[in-house]
Structures are given as C-alpha cells and as structure tokens.
C-alpha cells in the first residue's frame, strides 16, 4: 500500500471539490473493497477523502412514494430496514446474500455499487490485466475462467461485476444521485451506471473523477414476488457463479436481472416479455449473444435452470 494523505471531508461539496482537484484522490467509505485493493497496489491513491462523516446514512421516503437511500447506509442497515424488507424484498435478499455479517456492517450502499471485479487475474499484479493496467492484455482469456462473464465480454476483458446488491438495484430501476466536483448534481439511471468492458475495461461506471454518490433512489414499490437466488459452490460467503434477482407479478410478467454473467448487472427487457412463457424462452433471449468459455459454458444452463426454479417459487 502506497503512502497517502488523509482527510475527513466536512461536506459533500467539499469532498467532491477536493477529489476533483486531485487526480490521485479517492473517496473512502466502508473501505472493504478499496483497502483490499490498496494492500495489493491494485488501487494506488495518494490521497483518501473519508466520507463517513457526511451524514449520508439516512433512508427516507421520497415524495413520489419511493425510497431515498443515503450513499453511506451500511448494507446491514439497508437490508434490515422495515420498508425495504416489506416493499423491496429483492433488495434485502440480495444484500443478505452478499459477503459476511462483518463486511455488511461496514460496506456502504455507494461502495457496493462501485466494487470491482473479483477476477483472480485482476487481483494478481504479476499478471497482465487491461482493467488494472490498460493495454497490458487480458490473462484471464485462455486461462482459468470458471467464474468469468459469458455475455457482453470483449477481447480486452471477460470479468464480471461481483455485486449482489447491484442486481437488485437494476431490477428495481434505481437511480444513482451524485454531486460533481463543480457542485452540480445529476441523477443516473442504474441501467446507465455500469459499463460493459469494450476496449476500456478500466472504466467501469459513468462517474467522472471526483463525482460523489450521495444517494440511491428507488421508485415506488412495484409489488410482486421478489426473489434473489444466488448460486455458488459453498453455501455462504462466496461470490455468485450465477445469481438471479426477480420480481414476478401474479400474472406471470415481471423483471429479471442476472449476476455472475457479465461486466454489469445483466437485464434485457425483451427477455422479460417472454417470462410468462417460462424460463427457457426468457433465458434464450437473455443470453442470446453469449460467448462462454469451455470453463463457464455451464452458466448458460445454470441461468435457465435457476430462472426456472425462481419462476416456480414465485408461482408457488
């Protein structure tokens, strides 16, 4: 870990301004992903702006009937919040499927959206990685790729986004609210927030440098059976091989977002239209352009079968 200077930001605007003025600055909230990566010098900020004291830890109803979740709300508190449990069960379920109790106590809502891939080649600084070191090549391609993406990949990167929470946010059409270094605000639909790797896999979101997430806003509840099914080798404390977040309405329509398959939460509205016909039809469209490797081809079957189980559970 490289040496860095440290400040506790007094306000959101000051934090954004301070970050914008220093290209090597990073915000730190829970720190559970950033410090992990800093120890390995995958992240090498020379200045950390601690945003924990900014009061962004409230969960409040919005005028539209939705919910505004402060960026600093811890995963445990979000998952355990009464309104979330009642009206956004998918979000609660997704959060609780992730990490461990200790990590959820620290990890923040914004940080969860920004967590980086768990590709082992990204984590091993001896190996070429376009995400870690643009232009160096992708050592995952042709290597051990059981965990990797099957769709939306590029010649530069086949990493997945590891977040469970983001799958729920994607299915629930959340909106990410930010403040930029110049003090301006914007609202980014979650669909536009994460990027596919293309030839710039090191750029994972549409955030600008210095732009700080202040809240994530959920639209009014949409009802339905809300399920999150995470499939993994061990029963807990593991990243998903595949995960499915679903909201299924009594008439069989609904929404699905899939984790463990792509560089971003994977949702295809055209596939959702096929939901009433069953998992095979929906999965066929969802993964129609998939380019799996020999190691992860099983994910295609797994998505379809898991989706089938989710639909059956929603109906049952």
């Amino acid at each position, binding site marked *: *870990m*490289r*040496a860095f200077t440290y400040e506790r930001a007094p306000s959101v605007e000051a934090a954004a301004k301070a970050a914008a003025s220093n290209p090597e600055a990073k915000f730190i909230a829970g720190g559970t992903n950033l410090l992990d990566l800093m*120890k*390995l*010098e995958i992240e090498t900020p020379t200045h950390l702006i601690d945003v924990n004291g900014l009061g962004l830890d409230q969960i409040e109803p919005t005028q539209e009937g939705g919910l505004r979740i402060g960026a600093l709300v811890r995963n445990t508190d979000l998952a355990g919040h009464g309104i979330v449990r009642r009206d956004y069960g998918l979000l609660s379920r997704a959060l609780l499927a992730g990490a461990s109790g200790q990590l959820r106590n620290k990890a923040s809502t914004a940080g969860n959206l920004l967590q980086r891939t*768990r590709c*082992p*080649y990204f*984590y*091993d600084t*001896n*190996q070429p990685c376009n995400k870690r070191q643009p232009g160096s090549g992708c*050592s995952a391609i*042709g*290597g*051990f790729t*059981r965990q990797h993406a099957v769709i939306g990949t590029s010649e530069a990167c086949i990493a997945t986004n590891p977040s469970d929470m983001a799958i729920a946010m994607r299915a629930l059409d959340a909106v990410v609210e930010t403040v930029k270094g110049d003090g301006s605000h914007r609202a980014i639909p979650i669909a536009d927030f994460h990027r596919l790797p293309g030839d710039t896999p090191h750029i994972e979101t549409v955030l600008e440098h210095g732009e700080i997430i202040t809240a994530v806003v959920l639209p009014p509840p949409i009802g339905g059976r809300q399920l999150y099914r995470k*499939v*993994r*080798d*061990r*029963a*807990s*404390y*593991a*990243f998903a*091989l595949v995960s499915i977040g679903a909201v299924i309405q009594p008439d069989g329509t609904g929404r699905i977002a899939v984790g463990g398959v792509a560089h971003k939460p994977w949702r295809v509205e055209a596939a959702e239209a096929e939901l009433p016909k*069953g*998992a*095979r039809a929906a999965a066929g469209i969802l993964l129609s352009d998939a380019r799996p490797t020999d190691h992860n081809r*099983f994910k295609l*079957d*797994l998505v*379809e*079968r*898991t989706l*089938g*189980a989710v639909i*059956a559970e929603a109906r049952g």
Partner: protein
Amino acid sequence: MQFDTPAATNPIDQLKVVGRPIHRIDGQLKTTGRAMYAYEWHDPNTPYAYGYPVGAAIAKGRIKSIDVSAAKKAPGVLAVVTTLDVGELKKGQFNTAKLFGGDRVQHYHQAIAVVVAQTFEQARAAAALVRVDYVVEKGAFDLEKAKDSAIEPAAKPGEAPPDTAVGDFDAAFASAPVTLDETYTTPDQSHCMMEPHASIAAWNGDKLTVWTSSQMIDWWRSDLATTLGIDKEKLHLMSPFIGGGFGGKLFLRADAVLAAFGAKAAGRPVKVALPRPLMANNTTHRPATIQRIRIGAGRDGRIAAIAHESWSGDLPGGGLETAVNQTRLLYAGAHRMTAMRLATLDLAEGNAMRAPGEAPGLMALEIAIDEIAEKLDMDPVQFRILNDTQVDPENPKRPFSHRNLIGCLEVGAERFGWSQRGRPGARRDGNWLIGLGVAAAFRNNLLIPSGARVRLDREGIVTVETDMTDIGTGSYTIIAQTAAEMLGLPIEKVAVHLGDSHFPVSAGSGGQFGGNCSTAGVYAACVKLREAIAQKLGFNSDDVVFENGEVRSGNRSVRLAEAAGSDGLVGEDTIQWGDLSETHQQSTFGAHFVEVGVDVATGESRIRRMLAVCAAGRILNPITARSQVIGAMTMGVGGALSEELAVDTRSGFFVNHDLAGYEVPVHADIPHQEVIFMDETDPMSSPMKAKGVGELGLCGVSAAIANAIYNATGIRVRHYPITLDKLIGGLPDVA
C-alpha cells in the same frame, strides 16, 4: 524405553485421567486471545523490524537482476536482502524446492527477496518497488499432459515401493465375471491453515532465536541450520502455539529463512509472515492425482483382483503422492497390484497434507468400491464387510494388530439409518434430491521415537517438557492427562511446556502419530521419574503405587511434594519402537456415512447429516479426539465439494491463491456432526494402547459424499471437486 512387546497392564489402564472428557487445558488462553502465536512475541524493550517477502512473478526460469534501489530508498527501509545477495544455499533435508538463495526460479511466488523496514506498512510498500528481470523458461504444469512422461521413481528408504504385485492380477481380472475399470482425478489442494506461516528471528552474536509456527521442531531446527549454514546447537526454536498446520508446517518454510537473513542485515529482530495471497504458490500443497482402479469380483461379491495405479507430479527431486497405499491393505483379494508414477511439474512443491496418500487414494478407491458393489447389486456396506481381511493381503501370515472395520460399518449403518437408502435418484424433499453415501476410512498407524522430560518440584507440581507441538490436536491436554495418570495427580497439578528446541526431541505433529507417540514418550519419562522417586525414598519400585498425590509402598506413604525435596526430581526418556509394526500391521479404521441434498435445479450439493465411526485404539480424550474427527470431516466436505487449486497451465501457477478464490467450507456448509469411537485398545501400538484419529477422520469422507451425490442424482462424478457444473447436464428437466 524400548517398546518391543505388547503392552501389559500398566498405570494408564487405571483411566482416572486418561480417556476422560477433560476440557483443553489451554482453552482459556485460546478463548481469551492470550495464547501467543509466532508473530506475536513481544518485548517492549526490543525494536522489532518488519520483513515483507517478495515472490517470483514467473514459474520457471532465472533471475538476471534485481533492482532494489527504489526499495532501499523508501521510507523506513532498513535492509533489502535478495536471493542473489545470499547466493546458493544448502537446502534442508525435507525441502524439495529451495526456499531462498541463488538465481533459479523453480516455482511461482518462490521467495526472491525480503524487504525489512521499521514498520509493516513501510516494508510492504517498499517490497512493491523491487524490480526483477527474469529469463523465463518453459515449464510443465499440466499433469494430464505430463502423465505419459511420468517415471517410476526409485523407492525411498523406509517408504513403500512404487510398484507392488501379488498373484496374477491380469489373469484374475480378465476372468472375473464382474469388473470395474475407471479413472478418477483429485485436484491440487491447499492446507489453508488459519495462521499464515510466520517467524520472528533474533540474532545474538552467532546465536539465533526463532519463534515460528512449526509442527516439527527438530526438523525445522536442523533444516534452518543447514539452510543458514550455522551450527544447529546455536539455534533456538520455539513454537508453543500453532495456528493450524495440516502438513503445511511440517517442513521449514521461507518465512523463517527470510526473517533470519533480514534480522542479520537489519541488525535487529525481524518479523516475517507470509501474506495470504502468497501462501498457495510459495509453500507446499497436496498434489493432484490421476488414479486408475480396476476391480474384478465374483458373483458372490468377493474381490478376486484389484489394481490401483496413480500418477502425480512434483518438482525434480520431489516425491509421489502415495495414493495407492490403502489399497494394499484395505480389502481382501488374492490377485493385486499397485503402481505409482511421478511426472515432473514446475508448480510449487507437492508435499504432505493431512493424510497424504490415503486422503486422495480413498477419494478414488471408495467411489470404485461403491461402483463395483452396485454392479454386483450389493449393498456397499455389505460388500465391504464381505471383503474385509484380518491379515495383510500381500502377506497373510502378517495379521493386523487390531482391526474392527466391520464393527464401524455395522454400528454406523444402524445409527445412521442406512436402511433408508433407496435407488439412485429416488428420494426427494421439495427441490432437493436426497442421497446417502458410505465409505470406509483407513489410515496407517505410524510409530516415531518421542522424548520427554518430567520434573517434580517441591510444590508437588509435575512439569512436562517436550518439543512436541499442539497444532490444535490437543497435545497439551493429553500429555497432561498422561503425566497425571502416571503420577497419581489431578490434572491441575501438571504443567505442560511444548514446542521448544531446548526440550527433548519428540515425534512432533504429523501423520496422526503425534498423540500416541508423544504421550508414549511422556509415559516413558514418567516411568523414569517414578523410579527416581521410589529410589530416593528407598521404595521397591515393583509394588509402588502413585495415587492421590502420594507415593505408597506397603504401608509407607509420602506426599509427592515431600518426595521431591527442595531440588526436585527429574525423569527423562525417549520411547523407541521395536518390530511390532513389522510383525503386525497397525492401522486405524472407520466408516463415514453422509446424507446430501442436491438442488434439482442448480446442482448445488449441501450436506444434511454426517456420521463417523472410528476404531483407533484407546481414545485418550474423547473431547479432543472428537474435535479432530469433526474437523477432518469438515475438510473432507471441502475436498468433495469445492476445494481445488486451479492451475493456469500456460504460465504455471495456482490462480485462486487466496481464501476468497480457494473455497474451504464455512459454517453454513456443515451440519451437526456425529462421531462414535469403538471401545477398544491396541496393546501393539504403545504403552498408551492408542492410535491416531486426526487423519483417519478425513480418509473416505469425500468419497462418502461423492457416493451420496450419486445416490441422490444417479450421476457418477469421478473428478473432484464435485461442483454443480459436473452435475447440471444430468439433472432432471425443471423448466
């Protein structure tokens, strides 16, 4: 003490302390965080420095140059020592790969430098500044590809020959009415003990003191002295608490070597711990195997012919994973052969991990037994009972010292409700396909000399000193129980000091021999102390009784505290082993029963119930012995369902080299576990009449799970770990 005749009745048989469910005497230290592990020794007056290791970035080749200029200039840096600086070092007797020194890179993450700084943070940051110029060489990393070039290695002294044959296997197999011929694979596995390898080294002139995390004090001491080129007598090694080993701390590791070089260069004590992401490739691992098993049986279910061949790989000069061992002894059959071949692989050093040989061997053999039983339309429990043998099948004149595999199977089947087992794929509970599986457990009982010193002081306290280690096995407690029993004291009057090279050399912790051998050594030392006490008091040592803190002879009795006198009394001895393990085959036995559920949609396998029944001689402490077994069962769950060091066969390293990527079981994977110990003693094994259970508990577990998954799904997976991708294509349609 020479142990060359079966044990007669002795003071241990009183079982006033030995055999009792006594809680660990180190339990309060461990649960309050007061037990001090290697990296934690601290003297407020000593300025420690921190060493951070640098691992090789290539798997095979040569180091042209190392640029340490930036590292040396970094804040707080006291010294940088590179593998080029120290040059070629002599290698320890027990190491295959060199730990440090010279320009050759033999495997990924091999230690090539240590950066010493005032703080851990400074050392870690400076280590990232070391720049290395390599000449990369092509290596072999794929066992499947290297298999055909594998060779028959020369038999090592004291070890089994690579090839064995009795009768005429080929003919008997060819004529057998029911046959099986299948190939199984087991992956590379990692010990993943929770405490990373760690050492503190402190020089005082030419004397070196090292706190480390070692299962085998004397092996480490010898090999560290050899590696550093110093006199063994100048080296003081201590390892009183060890945060797990499982074979990964049997042999000297790089942390101790780097700490010693770093401390020399920095001129002050240096602490080095291996960073977790370095461990899998820097240290040893259980090598992958490819195993072919052939079994020919008569229609009566009796094995006529059995063959087990195994291929594994290691670095040049390395050894076999002896996966065929158990097949020479576990089942009857007149015609039999085994063979092992060794391929050269340029991965990290393969070496012992808990139950080396038997663990992967039984992962394969006990699936094969399940398969042949099914072909015979026999219950696999009954098949195993039918093919039991009470003698060494290769040498029928040589009996087992004690063997109750049948008892384990029968008791286990009854207790587990084995009769509920149905046809494959027949039982369902909601979305779960339910299956039961069984496997035999088998592990040889090894006998290693073990010494101890026992001191009685004027307070009536008995203090045991031995370089034996407690890696979580319960050595502290069973040693205290042994001394208490021998001297007629409550356990509170016994102090136990372990893991110090100033103490008599013990068996150490490995091969499940530690419990039996180290307590036998303590027994021997206590016999000496009893004699010294009797002699001092002028008692006839034949009729003297040690009871209730007193020593009695006839109608005379003296308090032990009084007998000790102001100078105290000492007994010291080493247990030495005669030929009882040659005249008799000494082994431990068990049966594992498992119930699994397999998710019908996803193929995720989860354990629902587990039972182990063990026949392993006298159980010295049912609490700690049970913990050994449930822990081993847990490791077997990992081996069956998730553990695999994934090899990047292009650049030659284990890719998933941390605890996120290499998935060992977590709480949620493990149900309530049951263990039953058969009530038995083995007078051939030692004066304690005990054997080991720590490795037995792992042997066969993974195969029982594999068999249960087959019973649940009807899908036979012969390649571990049994992950959902290997099942999903064969599961029923759910859409």
